[in-house]
């Protein structure tokens, strides 16, 4: 296989393609205690993140919106990863995920910190797509704060 094919396979891993085809927790939660809207004005990708918090517990997370395979799979896997965690744990996971993709060198601590979300590390080779992978997480950050607002990648 040539280098391009390897790069693409690392970007579009089967698990990512699966979440793109069948996104999990794809719904609007009318009972949400906080909502955040994430948008990438350069490409038009946009997601709503719905959170149901009970005290410090993130009881339920869901998302709705439109985007590429990377952004949609990332949002889908994010909802699974943070559900049932405390807000603090969810926030730490968010820091690891964003750190893994955006820090100049891949860090072992972040790699360990993201657990099975390490599938997304291949996105590092496609700098233009990093914002796709982090969009839902940036929106989650706002939703965790409980302030209803819009976050933009730009």
């Amino acid at each position, binding site marked *: 296989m040539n280098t*391009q094919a390897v*790069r693409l396979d690392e970007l*579009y891993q089967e698990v990512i*393609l699966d979440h793109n085809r069948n996104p999990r927790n794809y719904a609007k939660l009318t009972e949400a205690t906080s909502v955040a809207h994430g948008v990438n004005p350069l*490409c*038009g990708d946009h997601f709503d993140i719905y959170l149901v918090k009970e005290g410090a517990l993130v009881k339920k997370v869901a998302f709705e919106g439109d*985007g*590429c*395979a*990377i952004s949609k799979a990332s949002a889908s896997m994010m909802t699974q990863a943070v559900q049932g965690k405390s807000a603090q744990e969810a926030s730490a996971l968010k820091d690891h995920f964003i750190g893994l993709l955006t820090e100049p060198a891949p860090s072992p601590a972040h790699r360990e910190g993201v657990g099975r979300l390490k599938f997304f590390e291949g996105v590092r080779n496609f700098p233009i797509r990093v914002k796709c992978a982090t969009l839902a997480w940036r929106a989650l950050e706002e939703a965790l704060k409980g302030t209803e607002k819009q976050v933009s990648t730009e």
Partner: protein
Amino acid sequence: MLATKTLDVQKIRSEFPVLAQTMSGKPLVYLDNAASTQKPLAVIERMHRFLSSEYANIHRGVYSLSQEATRFVDEAREKCRAFLNAESASEIVFVRGATEAINVAAFSYGGKYVREGDEVLVSEMEHHSNIVPWQRLCEENKARLRVIPVSDRGELDMAAFQNKLLNPRTRIVAITHVSNALGTLNPVGEITRIAHKAGALVLVDGAQSAPHLKIDVRAMDCDFFCFSGHKVYGPTGIGVLYAKKKHLEAMDPYQYGGDMIESVTFEKTTYAKPPAKFEAGTPAIAEIIGLGAAIDYLNSLGLEAIAQYEHHLLEKATEALLEIRDLTLIGQARQKASLISFVLAGIHPHDVGTVLNEEGIAVRAGHHCAQPLMKRFGVPATTRASFAFYNTEAEIEALVEGIQRVRKLFK
């Protein structure tokens, strides 16, 4: 009529140094010409020569170098006049690009003459650059922005334009000549004729038509026309606003400062005549000269030969893409320039663009700065391949293979 000469595409390709490289380890297949075109040696070398040995500021210099530079700029303005078939070179205003040209028309003309209760008409297929300035003008002047709808095929609803929307309150109709997202070629001559009968002026956004067609602003009879240098194989940062002389005289300046004045005292300033009235400050001299060289280059190939060859590429590409399963063309107007927008069922255009990039193919994926149009067609974005006269049938085959690769990956 003389037979149109045919293009020697291999020779042309050798005149564009960028095209010889690889991208992602594959020969570069550059199909993003609607965003910007590559530069021929004729332009690169002309600008290099000017900056290396002929450079000086223009106007007022009594020394030879400045006089020569001034002459080059005057010559470039004349080339632009001929390129558009304008009546006078004084109707050619140098601006940064089509976006700035539309802003000048909207605020220097519209700002003065569009009043409360008046209407401005744009179409559903406009680029944001031909929506937002008019929207802002209408907010400022309490006017109403109205929209000509687009059919499923991607053509303007001319009946709605003529019978429902256009009325005595319509001051300006701002319409694109060729849609950057659909490729549709609009009947701008007919639109102008109809609009003028109702007393409205017409601005034609030529950013996507000037690279492909022979433009004749007098035959079109439009009031304003604009294009960008970087889309006609010239440099960035330079473009042209054409306006009929009477409008340029009636408009207020856009920016104020040096070079646009006749005389200045602390009590009162009188402005220079057009086009200087709209060209405050030192202009993009090297870029103006580069634009002149680009126009010379296009003329040397022949705009008819260019149009004919690009139409051939469009037909080939349309035919080939229509055979791909799950692919839908967005925009199938009867009259089109050489660009194709498409969507693949279940696959986001950004993923298409990323996979094509790995094949060395440069296309655009996104909303093409036409979000209202994307909404109209119910898609968040499209993938767009846009062709220039240096593209080949082999590159269309590479595109088709690349799309098949995308489908395989996402099946």
